[in-house]
């Protein structure tokens, strides 16, 4: 009903509020800090919404676990280095079964990296960052409107799966301002699934395997295995309901481009020449959905903001080689994609970058 300019980070925050989030804990880090700022402003005029600026990202991640157990839909926002600090808490949330949402607005890593530049190098970290085996659910929108939409889905999936769900974004998308009508986006909201603390139960929430009566099962491998498969199967079943992806561009082309998040939009000028498969749910991988279309294409090119993290995954999914166009050093541009395609001999004949349309419009 109201079209207006909305920033990607703002849209993620507004989606969280729409999903019923009432607790945010965070620590400033570029390029995610607008979400922290939004939360603080919102909390000032909405007493039911609690806000805590923490001393570090370790505290942020553990705080949203506590806030969620206490009864609030809870979330935090960070970028690569902060997300690294949160990994232990991510694993704890998976083991205990605590719904919450972590937004990772990616920049170029590793280490401190390039804080103002977009990257997509946290992809594997969202899947394997914490110790042990667990089933991550991860979404990566590619427009500001989608930032809002998949923020709500992320909270829903967190509730249903009882686990920390990750929203990936990046410096480009997070800081992108687009005209959007968020009121037009209707996503049903899943209610809280976890009984809040101190409502009459005497549960023990523990990161170690524990019997239902609260006794630690630290020496019982059978019980650990039972609990592991139970949670894994449950989360996979929930993820199946959120198998978001896009299949489009020129489906009759000979080559399929796989790209996600902002990269799929930056590559848009290539639309006449290639088909596109854009996973929105990055984890668990969309094995069936990709296999259904990939067989039609002679070649597959993965264009991504890392040195082949998703290309490796796709090769594993399809058991076939793919071409790679890594966009490193924050170079998320059609020029960089053209150069990359040229390097592997895959630049479409006659394709030239039109400077006027090089901006990432969908």
């Amino acid at each position, binding site marked *: 009903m109201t079209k207006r300019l909305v920033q990607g980070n703002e849209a993620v925050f507004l989606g969280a509020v729409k999903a019923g989030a*009432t*607790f945010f*804990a965070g620590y400033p880090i570029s390029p995610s800090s607008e979400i922290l700022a939004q939360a603080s402003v919102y909390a000032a005029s909405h007493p039911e919404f*609690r806000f*805590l600026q*923490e*001393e*570090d990202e*370790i*505290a*942020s991640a*553990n*705080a*949203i*676990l*506590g*806030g969620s*157990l*206490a*009864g*609030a839909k*809870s979330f935090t926002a960070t970028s690569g280095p902060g997300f690294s600090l949160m990994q*232990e*808490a991510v694993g*704890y949330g998976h083991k205990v079964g605590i719904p919450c949402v972590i937004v990772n607005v990616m920049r170029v890593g590793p280490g401190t990296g390039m804080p103002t530049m977009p990257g997509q190098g946290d992809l594997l970290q969202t899947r394997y960052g914490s110790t042990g085996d667990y089933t991550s659910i991860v979404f990566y929108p590619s427009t500001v409107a989608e930032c809002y939409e998949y923020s709500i889905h992320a909270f829903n999936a967190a509730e249903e799966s009882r686990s920390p769900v990750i929203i990936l974004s990046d410096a480009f998308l997070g800081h992108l301002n687009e005209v959007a009508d968020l009121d037009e986006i209707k996503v049903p909201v899943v209610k809280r699934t976890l009984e*809040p*603390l*101190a*409502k*009459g*139960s*005497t*549960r*023990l*929430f*523990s*990161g*170690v395997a*524990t019997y239902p*009566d*609260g*006794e*630690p099962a630290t020496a019982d491998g059978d019980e650990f295995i039972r609990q592991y498969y139970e949670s894994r199967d449950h989360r996979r079943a929930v993820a199946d309901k959120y198998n978001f992806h896009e299949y489009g561009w020129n489906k009759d082309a000979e080559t399929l481009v796989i790209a996600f998040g902002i990269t799929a939009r930056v590559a848009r000028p290539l639309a006449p020449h290639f088909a596109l498969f854009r996973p929105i749910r990055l984890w668990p991988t969309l094995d069936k959905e990709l296999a259904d279309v990939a067989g039609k294409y002679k070649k597959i090119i993965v264009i991504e903001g890392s040195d082949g993290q998703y290309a490796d995954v796709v090769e594993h999914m399809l058991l076939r080689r793919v071409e790679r166009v890594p966009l490193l050093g924050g170079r998320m541009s059609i020029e960089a994609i053209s150069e990359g395609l040229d390097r592997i001999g895959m630049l479409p004949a006659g394709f030239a970058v039109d400077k006027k349309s090089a901006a990432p419009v969908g």
Partner: protein
Amino acid sequence: MAIKDKLKTDLFPTIWCPGCGIGLIMQQLASVMDDLGLDKTNTVLITGIGCTGRMGAYMNFESVYTLHGRTLPVAEAVKMVRPELNVIVVSGDGDTASIGGNHLLHSIRRNPNVTVICNNNEIYGLTGGQAGPTTPKGTSTISSPAGAGYSPINLQGVVASNPNAFYAKTTVYHQGPMKKAIKEAIEWPGFAFVDVASQCIENNGRRIGFASANDMLQHYRTEYKAAPPGATHLETHQTGIVKGSPVAAGETRS
């Protein structure tokens, strides 16, 4: 009501070693909870990794056995989302003062209305007896065979960095004063820290010359003296309570 109602006695015996001091803390905590009407509908326990953290499993309350060092971020969040609840942190000195040290600094600064009961046995017990942040200088441990190289952290001083906070030092031998300290800490409007000297005979005491847990208790009896009334600072081996100026609930600390 009785103390037993606060405990999951069907899970006894506990995993704690014979002679461990943690049970003495749990007993007094249960007693205070009984006196104050704390139950599973108005109180939650947040515990940290280490022997002490297992206390949550044995009490008739909702409890969160957090990651190592992360009791305070969890506790503060619970208190923020559910201010009507009594939030009690029970953890060891290593969890609280070492790996959780940064959270301790900043929770103290923010002055949330949570109570921390720290089982201070001056050692990493569960991992076998390594030196920790509270180990006295010169103490021989698994990780300091020639004697711990540094003086222990000044927990009283850290807590005192917030002029509105509550700090108590007591020992498991001094059951009456310990109960009083725990009770007043829970009633304190703001951050309250109860530092309880407690023996770990198996993974510390025997190595440093104590023959039994009782010897360690007797050591507390003879070494620790009550601070004079009105003391604003506790000397080493003094028991007592040091209160800042209380801040009413909802008000910002000074």
